[in-house]
């Protein structure tokens, strides 16, 4: 005969077992779709590169990681920093930072505008913001190309009005990449910003005005601290894909203005250096994580200062 305590113990065990069983599908998906491939990439980065791409299984080397940062001169075998790689890292960070900043500057007033519309019209505005998602990224990028190329809309209008007499060379510059990324990632900034602004208690803004805060002060001291979760979420959603962007720099930046995504693609394609490609991928991930940690830490600290 089992005691009450025994029954309770058995019930608890059964519950724990059920919990694991029920979450098994999710855990399997997470493992095979997310964590597993990462380990494959990590393993590849430590292998010897194959002659026609791929890797030589079972042969390990640090060459992949080595060439992320250094290059050996072909003539005199001296070691130098891999300037080309580092400048691509730097360009990626710089462009992603400015993309995030610009989408924030453009997205903030847009999201605020939508959040302050009457409830029944807000959905229409949100819907309009999401329309670009219906089209393929490649097509959107080519659309941007049509706008900024030498014979494109911008240059035509500027030349027609006589403001310039030579077309502005925007295509194949960092500016072109920046414009393309801001255009493509703007909705990813607007949506989380809107989500947190929609929850904003507008009576708090009135309280701010009531307590002698002018418009700018209300923005800095009331609105921004309150919608900070949306600012953080939007920045993360824009910064991460910007850093790994591939199509946009490929189409708008041409062959010379590479970003990290293009560099990685190059190693797996024409470069036939899979270990380097894998090492670069991991490096990209580390940069993203460090940048995020830094950002979230800072955002949380400035939040703590306010309360």
């Amino acid at each position, binding site marked *: 005969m089992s005691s009450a305590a025994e029954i309770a113990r058995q019930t608890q065990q059964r519950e724990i077992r059920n919990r694991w069983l029920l979450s098994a599908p999710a855990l399997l998906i997470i493992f095979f779709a997310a964590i597993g491939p990462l380990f494959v990439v990590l393993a590849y980065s430590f292998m010897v590169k194959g002659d026609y791409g791929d890797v030589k299984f079972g042969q390990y080397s640090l060459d992949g990681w080595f060439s992320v940062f250094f290059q050996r001169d072909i003539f005199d075998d001296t070691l130098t920093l891999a300037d080309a790689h580092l400048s691509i890292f730097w360009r990626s960070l710089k462009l992603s930072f400015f993309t995030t900043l610009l989408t924030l500057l453009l997205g903030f007033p847009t999201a605020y505008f939508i959040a302050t519309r009457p409830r029944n019209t807000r959905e229409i505005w949100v819907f309009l913001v999401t329309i670009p998602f219906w089209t393929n990224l490649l097509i959107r990028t080519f659309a941007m190309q049509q706008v900024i190329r030498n014979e494109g809309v911008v240059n035509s209008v500027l030349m027609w009005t006589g403001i310039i007499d030579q077309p502005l060379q925007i295509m194949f510059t960092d500016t072109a990449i920046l414009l393309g990324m801001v255009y493509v990632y703007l909705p990813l900034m607007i949506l989380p910003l809107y989500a947190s602004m929609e929850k904003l*208690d507008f*009576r*708090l803004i*009135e*309280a*701010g*005005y*009531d*307590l*002698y*805060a*002018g418009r700018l*002060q209300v923005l800095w*001291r*009331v609105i921004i*601290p*309150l919608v900070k979760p949306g600012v953080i979420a939007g920045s993360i959603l824009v910064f991460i894909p910007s850093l790994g962007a591939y199509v946009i720099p490929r189409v708008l930046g041409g062959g010379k203005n590479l970003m990290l995504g293009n560099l990685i693609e190059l190693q797996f394609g024409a470069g036939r250096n899979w270990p380097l490609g894998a090492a670069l991928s991991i490096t990209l991930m580390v940069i993203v994580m460090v940048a995020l940690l830094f950002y979230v830490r800072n955002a949380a600290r400035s*939040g703590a200062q*306010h*309360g």
Partner: protein
Amino acid sequence: MPKPEEAEQKRVAVEARSIVKAFGQGSNAIRALDNVSVAIRENEFFTLLGPSGCGKTTLLRLIAGFEYPTEGAILLYGDDIAGLPPFKRPVNTVFQSYALFPHLTVSENVAFGLEMLGRSKDEIKSRVAAMLKLVHMEELGNRRTDQISGGQAQRVALARALAPGPKVLLLDEPLSALDYKLRKEMQIELKRMQSETGITFIFVTHDQEEALTMSDRIAVMSKGRILQVGSPWDIYDKPADRFVADFIGETNFLTAAVVDIANSRATVRLSSGKEIPATVAEGMQPKHEATIVVRPEHARAVKKGGQLSGTVENVVYFGTDTHIHIRLEDGSPFTVRQQNARSEFCGFEIGDPAGIEIAADAAQVLRD
């Protein structure tokens, strides 16, 4: 009793002149305020009293500057403040929902207005301490606003609004979210703070008892209009019309015929045929048929005699007093309220016949 000479000498702090406030356009516009004029004196505890939706909040928001009048003007110490945005008006608000900043601590909330006014750090620090002391919250300055109770949040909202030293404090139903006991406590506290700070308080409530106990003067509002302005005593004892009489306290309405009128006294004939004296508001021209009001505490149920008679329908015991509901012979209801003598029942049971004795001077002819 108000002393008119003294009251007249006080300066007018806030004046609303023929204010109309319409929301919406054209035919479906709502007139939230319909030709409202009122003058609120310096250092006064002034209450806007009226049922929900009568325009109290709208009037406060016009004074605070969150809305602009469709017609009319708001004057602050004689100056038209139409052009001033809320952050330039020396007026602070205690919001109905408190609207404390959730990202700031209690102290930071109280300091907010002072910081925006560019006061020095030292001044802010001492002022915040003084304000927290005033509302008995010294200990909780570092709490987050979600770590305090509703009553405490109410005090913080009050301290925050008082800290910049406004000329006028607007309070929009600040006590309505509190439970009964806390509300009674805060009523006394608010009165104390008003007399300690000497700031003009404009207080909004839909609770007539709250208005009567706290106010120097009350404006009774209904459907976007102010029906009567006066001291609690005036409002209760000399209601100007049926709405005010009905809204403030309990009242018996009787139809009567005006037999005679001289100065501000009239003689009216009740449905029973008996004649009683009644007061008439100044400048009033009673018609032959008139409505008169008698407060329940100004009448007594008697076994024999009285000016009216009827049958007891219900007897409700309230501890300090007993309400006797009587159906009059003409079919209308009448309630009398009498104090309970010690260990003695009122002597009436349901179904008993009863007479009603109306105290001298208790009846009043209404303007309708």
